[in-house]
């Protein structure tokens, strides 16, 4: 009886605790190699140096088209850029940090002679000292890349973007995104538990430089582009709201710009965002022609493009959009850009028609475009921006994506597809194929090229 009861008790226990053998199937997927995974190295430092040093070669080819509105200069059919790129943050004694970001380029191309000043060019993007004066209060002095804005395709509140772009003759996306010049400034930032406040002042250092041409001085740091006027920025961010608002005030030679941004998570996969700025300013055309005359690029008083000068209406700039991410790593962005001082549909049609009929008008048409690119603002008043980014198509090996700008007034477009392949931890190989879509007098169809391609190879050191 006693033995029977004990056995009964053991049987109860055995029945109560079952063995989950079906779960063992998952164990078969653990690779044996995981048993000998490398042990992580130890570090005791709390501040880390940050170094990204790389050698990069980018070959760009263009399939140029016969133009209705001729460009004043011949267009290249190919260009090769070999670069040494360094981006370094070095902790110094106490709470000081030294920042340095630079790219040395050597060019070859269909329009470049064997030996030319344009064959080598240095882009000094940043050089500054930073200090944490008291906890969470920072000061930076030197050439600093201060970028504001939360949208992808156009940032109205990124006030220091003007005249900072390099490589304007190329559509090499890496050049456009990462090679921007900083501005000599002193910047102070205070972080609070609920947000931050930032103030920056960029002094005038020299006279205004003209829009860069192919005859760049090789090692010109570009002070005349980034520091030709005194400018100041004050921004406040607040984290206490789900909208993460930011308010900005910026003052430059044009006047006082006001700006703000909001963003919000709508659901697990969707973020909506809005970025706005406004200022009293002349139209894009009036600013471009005045700048051309002031810098000697255009003859004074000989403007043939009709525009209303002297007026400074309040002009709004807006980027509003949303991003959505799928369960299979694809992120889509849709944005609408409104640039009130840009060319309206009828205005663009008029100046493109003038450019098609008159050589001097054509020259000024292209100068307005060049000015808009130099200011990093849209040419026309309304456009759409679309982006698809598919990360880890092959895990840690392949990313695919595409972007497109579409002009609202005529439906023309500028599109680019890309693939990024990571054969190893130190190598990245990228390919970009771009195309313009639309009639030869449309916003994007009037560009000199129909198809472009970039092959880029990067070796991280």
């Amino acid at each position: 009886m006693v033995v029977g009861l004990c056995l009964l008790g053991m049987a109860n226990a055995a029945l109560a605790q079952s063995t989950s053998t079906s779960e063992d199937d998952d164990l078969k997927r653990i690779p044996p190699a995981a048993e000998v995974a490398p042990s992580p190295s130890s570090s005791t430092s709390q501040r880390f140096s940050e170094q990204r040093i790389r050698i990069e070669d980018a070959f760009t080819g263009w399939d140029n088209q016969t133009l209705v509105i001729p460009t004043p200069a011949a267009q290249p059919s190919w260009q090769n850029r070999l670069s040494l790129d360094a981006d370094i943050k070095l902790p110094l004694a106490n709470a000081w940090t030294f920042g340095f970001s630079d790219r040395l380029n050597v060019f070859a191309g269909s329009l470049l002679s064997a030996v030319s000043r344009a064959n080598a060019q240095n882009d000094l993007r940043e050089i500054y000292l930073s200090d944490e004066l008291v906890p969470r209060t920072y000061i930076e002095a030197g050439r600093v890349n201060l970028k504001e804005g939360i949208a992808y395709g156009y940032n109205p509140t990124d006030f220091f973007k003007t005249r900072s772009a390099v490589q304007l003759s190329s559509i090499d996306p890496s050049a456009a995104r990462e090679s921007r010049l900083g501005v000599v400034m002193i910047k102070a930032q205070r972080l609070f538990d609920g947000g931050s406040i930032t103030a920056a002042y960029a002094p005038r250092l020299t006279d205004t430089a003209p829009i860069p041409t192919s005859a760049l001085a090789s090692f010109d740091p570009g002070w005349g582009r980034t520091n030709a006027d005194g400018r100041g920025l004050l921004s406040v961010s607040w984290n206490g709201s789900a909208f993460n608002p930011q308010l900005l005030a910026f003052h430059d030679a044009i006047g006082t710009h006001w700006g703000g941004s909001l963003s919000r998570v709508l659901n697990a996969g969707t973020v909506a965002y809005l970025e706005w700025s406004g200022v009293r300013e002349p139209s894009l055309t009036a600013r471009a022609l005045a700048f051309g005359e002031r810098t000697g690029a255009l003859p004074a008083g000989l403007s043939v493009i009709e525009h209303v000068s002297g007026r400074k209406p309040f002009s709004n700039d807006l980027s509003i959009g949303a991003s959505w991410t799928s369960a299979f790593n694809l992120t889509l962005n849709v944005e609408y850009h409104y640039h009130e001082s840009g060319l309206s549909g009828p205005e663009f049609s008029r100046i493109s028609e003038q450019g098609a009929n008159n050589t001097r008008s054509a020259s000024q048409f292209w100068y307005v475009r060049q000015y808009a690119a130099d200011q990093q603002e849209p040419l026309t008043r309304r456009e759409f921006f679309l982006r698809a980014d598919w990360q880890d198509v092959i895990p840690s090996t392949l990313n695919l994506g595409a972007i497109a700008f579409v002009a609202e007034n005529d439906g023309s477009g500028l599109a680019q597809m890309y693939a990024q392949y990571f054969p190893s931890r130190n190598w990245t190989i990228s390919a970009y194929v771009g195309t313009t879509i639309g009639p030869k007098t449309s916003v994007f169809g009037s560009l000199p090229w129909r198809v472009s391609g970039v092959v880029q190879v990067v070796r991280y050191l």
Partner: protein
Amino acid sequence: MKTSLSFLLLALSILPLGARAVEAPTADEVVTASDAVRNPSEPFERKLTLVEYIDGTAHSQTVLRVYSKVDPATGQYRNLVRYEEPPRDVAKTVLMNGTVMWFYDPAARSSVRISPQQRLLGQAAQGDVVTVNLAHDYRAKLVGPAAGETLNDADQHARSCWHVELVPSNDSAIYGRIDYWVEQGSFHPVKSKFYSDSGRLLKIAYYHKYGESLGAQRPTEIILIDAVNSKLVTTMNTSDDKARAIPDNWYQRDYLPRVGQ
């Protein structure tokens, strides 16, 4: 007398089961205790080394540094995740603070806001698997036999586990369901299976190589088996754990360029 003895023996034989029934922790207590095993309650800094295996062969390695601190308002961890390797990703930083998430790209010097779905992409998401406080975002219930299940751990050693099913209790929960096995007695997590809202199995985690860290025995390796891509397994080793004061004002967009500086 014989009858009395029989009743006594019967009582003794079933006492262990009865005592377990009285003393057995609730599902919520199991999850809370296992959360405390995976992570300390005080703010800490941790290094994560992730090795990705494709078809059993090591394919890539990512090193992350994570700065974690519990938000007293939500009970959930706030994380700053900074990439230290590979070279192309150095200093990329992700802020995860509830539904407020930002991604900072040092090359572009800019931050963009990302969605909870986006944080599940890439290796930074794995850092979040380590520190997520399951008890705060999920309702737990014990499933399977009352006395638990015996489950083999990653070393093929049998463990007596509670089997807990977790379902979201608020909007911050990013998985539709989690199956969770926690070792009885030690409250060591042994295994978990993460499902999407649609019920699709996304990944399987084994908690492995328990060792001393910040005053307790904690898993120093998590093996993540991708259930969507059958070829993909990721190991995640923790090291350099250290308690440190982390100011609340680190967890905002404007601090991202300064993480690690």
